[in-house]
């Protein structure tokens, strides 16, 4: 200290001073106890661009008029309008019609929504959901909280499916050679060909479906095959589970589905399985069970090891995340099996650090026998699956954490082989009638099978495509029958545990369309059968008792059919040896993955999903090639550089995105983009990698050649936007985390930097809220959050949030009220990642309120930071003054006010905002109002957890808790009382109502040193 003062008083000697500053910096670094967190590689490098981003409320350019009309020209043009701006409030309200029912249904009370149980299916697996219906218009999807496969949670695909229903680009008519036809025309047209097939026992009929788990549809198909014994049923879906069933075949000699009981698992090893993101069967239940075991304050915390070939949200939650090329996972699994004491055949020798890792994981697994689980990824080789089964059996996990059941898939054949056989038949001229029920094989079939080519160039006389869109496959078929959306049609489907949910429609079909069930009925000769009759008829056969009506009503009401859950099966592992490991070669590996948003391409026209930032890259609207920082350096690539990818003679050109934590010498590409006929939203967005995908190696392949083309491509990522400024860096980290051990030593580490209650100049400030019956607050448990993005879409759906498009996203004008920030920690090759959902903090001392010149954002007595749209004049002072950057501004007219379908979709309880208005998270004030009014009418208080915000309600992990913090017994108060609880930037004395529970990791001490 003394020397410090002395040197500064001398001052003149600059060299000395510099040295001293350097010393202090180093000293400060050394003093820092907390870990350093970063959000993007630019931030890690401390680039000027990043500093710029932090300072502004919006990224550079977002608040400027950069379009063809210059700002000055715009002002000149709009001068008169601006002068009259104040007069807009003086418009006369137009006369509005009001249209009552003719006969009002008994159970409908206008103004109060009804909820119906139904199921959303993806990849054959049903997600049980409850759909909110306002006067029979479905508006919002929630999880079915009574159903064990959902427990109230949903995933992003289920959440966004409501937009699919109202998509104006959906197929609205039946087509024959691109001419509009009626259903009657089709019935007539198919009669002849079908009749002539009778004579040859249907030997020319081929039916191609996606994965079917529906008992009634499977029954219809089976009966069809009885009627036409020579006909064939093929199944193909690009994101299939061929390897899963092949692995089960290898291990048990029969296909089985594997369920995991993560609530019983102390140690979880993920072999490239992304089981915490939408699309993995059972995700909603797994996320809940996983989160339950991640509470450091209750019971033993589980430990997750994740080996992964591409960074995923599962890896981000892992205590030990190991980036590993997909082809090396098998060697690792063999080594792990060997370390556990059985000989799975010689493994490719793992590298030196892996030996240590294998040993540590094996010892950890041994120490927790029967309470561990090894989860293989769907895209890993059958051998990895067989090894995982063997390890789970050897450790005694079966029955505790692992349960085998019959496959949910009604026809668990090898789908690639099934499609190959179909193409061969087509080329051999054996196919007279090809009926494609759903799916888009002309776009997503493996390139080497040449399905589209066979469809186009072989003369199959009758080609039919049933689909939601007039897509690439519809283009190549003579007949296209418009398919009903799942919210318009009767059906049934099995959840991951086998439980059947009757899929009941929420609305009559918006267009003249038919379901697969109705089409199958026509083929079986009952042309007039409705979906309702078919599904109900099937279940009547299954449950023929006199109480069927009751059984049926109960199944519809509850959302599942009693007694259909698959029982656990005892399967014996076959001791047969595994095939010898193959050398995958050392070339560059390419991974093909389902896109986290558009899945296999079927959601390409869904604007919500397109604009949803991907869990780690925060990419929107595109699917760049992911590449490791080290590899990019070696190849001289930067993010947004275009590269040519060459694999087996096929070449695709796509941009690069450098992703921290990606394994070296490998790239990841996401399928589902580059559609030619997706609709206005999805067509020509992103890059199609299906042409690189071969049927022999659909998931990963080595021998990729990469060449830089020299061109650049603009990618719209939200990573780094809305970055909160932390001038002193580590002194007040936004994400706080410790290991379990450190947490036990220092339980209140998260309290650092919290201002004392006495800091405010207004004594008794708190008292004004204490007399209120309700004081709303939210606690977000970072330990539970799995980064599944569901909350973003739940909020978007509930609050009528618009989609802005790629160009606007790139300017940082996206409108999501809730964002999920990703923070990385450690070096760029092996970073630890953290998710942090950030809604409005609802500060008690809100900085935004002080600066609003028109009082458009003010405090409510219950502590909400109200946003009054009709008062807002768009000065944007509030967002400029918001340290959390949670306010969103309608720079342009982002809402679609014209499309009639979207009008039906909107939540009638939330104002639809127009241009020039600021908006932000309201804690779902419409729900608060509803519940408060209901409670007051019934002369009671709102019960704890009775009132849930949209993000909370469908969070599969239960990470978000909202409630009354004036009630010390409420769930949220109990969470806020924990020592892990902290507020963001609390030292600003904003007194945020939204607080976070610091993240605690449970690393293996053996691997820590």
């Amino acid at each position, binding site marked *: 200290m003394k020397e410090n003062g002395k040197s500064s008083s001398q001052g003149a000697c600059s060299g000395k001073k510099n040295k001293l500053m350097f010393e202090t910096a180093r000293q400060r670094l050394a003093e820092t106890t907390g870990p350093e967190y970063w959000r993007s590689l630019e931030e890690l490098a401390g680039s000027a661009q990043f500093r710029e981003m932090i300072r502004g409320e919006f990224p550079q350019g977002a608040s400027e008029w950069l379009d063809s009309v210059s700002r000055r020209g715009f002002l000149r043009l709009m001068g008169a309008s601006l002068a009259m701006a104040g007069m807009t409030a*003086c418009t*006369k*309200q137009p*006369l*509005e*019609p*009001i*249209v*009552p*029912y*003719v*006969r*009002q249904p008994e159970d409908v*009370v*206008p*103004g*109060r929504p009804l909820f119906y149980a139904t199921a959303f299916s993806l990849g054959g697996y049903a997600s049980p959901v409850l759909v909110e219906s306002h006067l029979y218009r479905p508006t919002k999807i929630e999880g079915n909280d009574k159903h064990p496969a959902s427990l109230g949670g949903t995933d992003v695909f289920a959440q966004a499916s409501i937009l699919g229903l109202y998509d104006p680009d959906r197929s609205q008519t039946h087509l024959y050679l691109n001419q509009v036809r009626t259903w009657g025309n089709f019935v007539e047209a198919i009669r002849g060909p079908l009749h002539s097939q009778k004579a040859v026992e249907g030997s020319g009929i081929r039916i191609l479906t996606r994965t079917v788990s529906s008992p009634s549809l499977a029954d219809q198909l089976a009966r069809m095959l009885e009627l036409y014994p020579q006909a064939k049923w093929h199944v193909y879906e690009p994101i299939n589970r061929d390897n899963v069933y092949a692995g089960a075949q290898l291990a048990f000699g029969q296909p089985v589905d594997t369920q995991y009981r993560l609530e019983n698992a102390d140690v979880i090893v993920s072999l490239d399985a992304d089981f915490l993101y939408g699309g993995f069967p059972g995700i909603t239940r797994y996320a809940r069970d996983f989160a339950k075991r991640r509470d450091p304050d209750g019971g033993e915390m589980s430990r997750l090891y994740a080996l992964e070939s591409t960074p995923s949200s599962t890896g981000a939650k892992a205590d030990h995340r190991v980036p590993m090329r997909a082809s090396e996972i098998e060697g690792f699994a063999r080594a792990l099996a060997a370390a556990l004491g059985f000989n799975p055949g010689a493994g490719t020798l793992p590298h030196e650090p892996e030996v240590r890792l294998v040993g540590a994981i094996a010892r950890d697994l041994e120490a927790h026998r029967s309470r561990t689980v090894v989860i293989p990824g769907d895209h890993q080789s059958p051998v990895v699956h067989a090894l995982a089964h063997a390890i789970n059996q050897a450790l005694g996990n079966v029955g505790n954490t692992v349960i085998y059941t019959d496959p949910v898939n009604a026809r668990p054949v090898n789908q690639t082989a099934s499609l190959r056989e179909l193409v061969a038949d087509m080329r051999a001229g054996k196919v007279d009638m090809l009926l494609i029920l759903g799916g888009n094989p002309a776009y997503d079939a493996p390139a080497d099978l040449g399905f589209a080519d066979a469809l186009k160039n072989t003369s199959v006389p009758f080609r039919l495509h049933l689909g939601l869109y007039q897509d690439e496959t519809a283009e190549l078929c003579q007949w296209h029958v418009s398919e009903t959306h799942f919210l318009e049609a009767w059906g049934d489907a099995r959840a991951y545990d086998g439980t059947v949910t009757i899929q009941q429609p929420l609305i009559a079909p918006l267009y003249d369309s038919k379901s697969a069930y109705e089409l199958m009925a026509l083929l079986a000769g009952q042309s007039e059968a409705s979906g309702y009759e078919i599904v109900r008829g099937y279940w009547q056969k299954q449950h023929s008792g006199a109480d069927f009506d009751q059984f049926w009503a109960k199944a519809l009401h509850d959302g599942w059919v009693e007694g259909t859950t698959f029982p656990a099966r005892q399967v014996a592992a076959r001791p047969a040896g595994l095939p010898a490991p193959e050398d995958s070669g050392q070339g560059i590996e390419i991974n093909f993955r389902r896109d986290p948003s558009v899945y296999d391409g079927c959601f390409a026209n869904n604007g919500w999903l397109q604009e949803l930032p991907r869990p780690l890259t925060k990419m929107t609207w595109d699917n760049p090639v992911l590449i490791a920082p080290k590899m990019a350096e070696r190849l001289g690539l930067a993010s947004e550089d275009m590269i040519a990818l060459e694999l087996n003679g096929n070449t695709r050109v796509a941009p690069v995105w450098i992703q921290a934590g990606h394994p070296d010498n490998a790239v990841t590409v996401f399928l589902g983009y580059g559609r030619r006929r997706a609709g206005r939203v999805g067509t020509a967005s992103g890059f199609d990698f299906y042409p690189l995908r071969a049927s022999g190696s659909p998931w990963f392949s080595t021998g990729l050649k990469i060449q830089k083309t020299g061109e650049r491509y603009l990618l719209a990522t939200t990573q780094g936007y809305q970055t909160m400024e932390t001038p002193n860096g580590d002194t007040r980290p936004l994400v706080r985390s410790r290991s379990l051990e450190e947490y036990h030593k220092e339980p209140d580490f998260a309290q650092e930097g919290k201002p004392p209650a006495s800091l405010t100049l207004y004594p008794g400030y708190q008292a004004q809220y204490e007399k*209120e019956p309700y004081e709303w607050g939210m606690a977000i448990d970072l330990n539970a959050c799995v980064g599944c993005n569901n909350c973003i879409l739940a909020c978007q759906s509930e609050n009528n949030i618009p989609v802005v498009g790629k160009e606007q996203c790139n300017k940082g004008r996206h409108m999501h009220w809730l964002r999920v920030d990703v923070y990385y920690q450690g070096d760029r090759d092996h970073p630890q990642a953290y998710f942090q959902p950030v809604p409005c903090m609802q500060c008690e001392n809100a900085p935004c309120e002080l600066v609003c010149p028109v009082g458009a954002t*003010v*405090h*409510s*007595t*219950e502590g*909400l930071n*109200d946003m*009054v*749209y*009709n008062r807002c004049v768009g000065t944007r002072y509030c967002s400029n003054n918001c340290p959390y950057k949670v306010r969103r501004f309608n720079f342009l007219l982002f809402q679609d006010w014209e499309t009639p379908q979207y009008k039906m979709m909107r939540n009638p*309880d*939330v*104002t*639809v905002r127009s241009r020039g208005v600021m908006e932000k998270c*309201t804690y779902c*004030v*419409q729900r*608060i*109002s509803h519940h408060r*009014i209901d409670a*007051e*009418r019934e*002369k009671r208080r709102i019960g704890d957890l009775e009132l849930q915000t949209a993000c909370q309600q469908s969070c599969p992990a239960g990470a978000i808790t909202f409630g009354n913090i004036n009630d010390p017994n409420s769930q949220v108060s109990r969470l806020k009382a924990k020592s892990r609880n902290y507020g963001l930037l609390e030292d600003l004395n904003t007194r945020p109502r939204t607080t976070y529970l610091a993240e605690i990791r449970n690393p293996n001490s053996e691997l820590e040193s």
Partner: protein
Amino acid sequence: MQIFHRSTNTISRATLFGAVFLISFVLWACIEIQRSPYVTYAKVVRPQPVPFSHQHHVAGLGIDCRYCHTSVEASSFAGIPPTKTCMNCHSQIWTGAWLLEPVRESFRSGKSLVWTRVNDLPDFVYFDHSIHINKGVGCNTCHGPVDRMPLMYNYASLQMEWCLDCHRDPAKNLRPRDQVFNMRYEPPSTLKPLTLDGKQYTDQLSLGVDLVKKYNLRTVADITSCSTCHR
């Protein structure tokens, strides 16, 4: 050199003086237009497919409000009766009346009657009938003497100042809950006192203050928070 004529002084003074009045007048006129029935439609009868008379049905026949507006106690929306409600009686009486032909046509064809909305709030305002009914706000407090309206019109301006007028002092408008649907309810006066819970009231204010407590009304600060109506 004199450029302006001497009279310019007077004219400019008069102009300056006059401008104050002119500007004030323009502002006053704007405000008055904004509050006038021209903008608010207050007390303006709207075109309807059937000239339904509330006076005849309510005062003449004594039909309760809730016979048609069924969800008024349970929901934000009071409900517009379906055609079936009309036909409950009109399949028996006035079965041939030409005035009722649109109603019968609607019932026959299954196509809804398209009424013009009378009490129409802006889309960013969320009003809830059920809670007002529950807290003792009478129908005619806001909707006016519906039983004396041969053709329906909105009684009040429905502007925010009108809402806030009551939200800032609800006591002046509350009545016992069993009087909410009484169209001829009169506030207590010395001539017609009102007895409630054994206490006699001779003026509205003392009754209102007690009802605020009895019905557990939220504080004025609560019900004038923006998010009470805007969200």
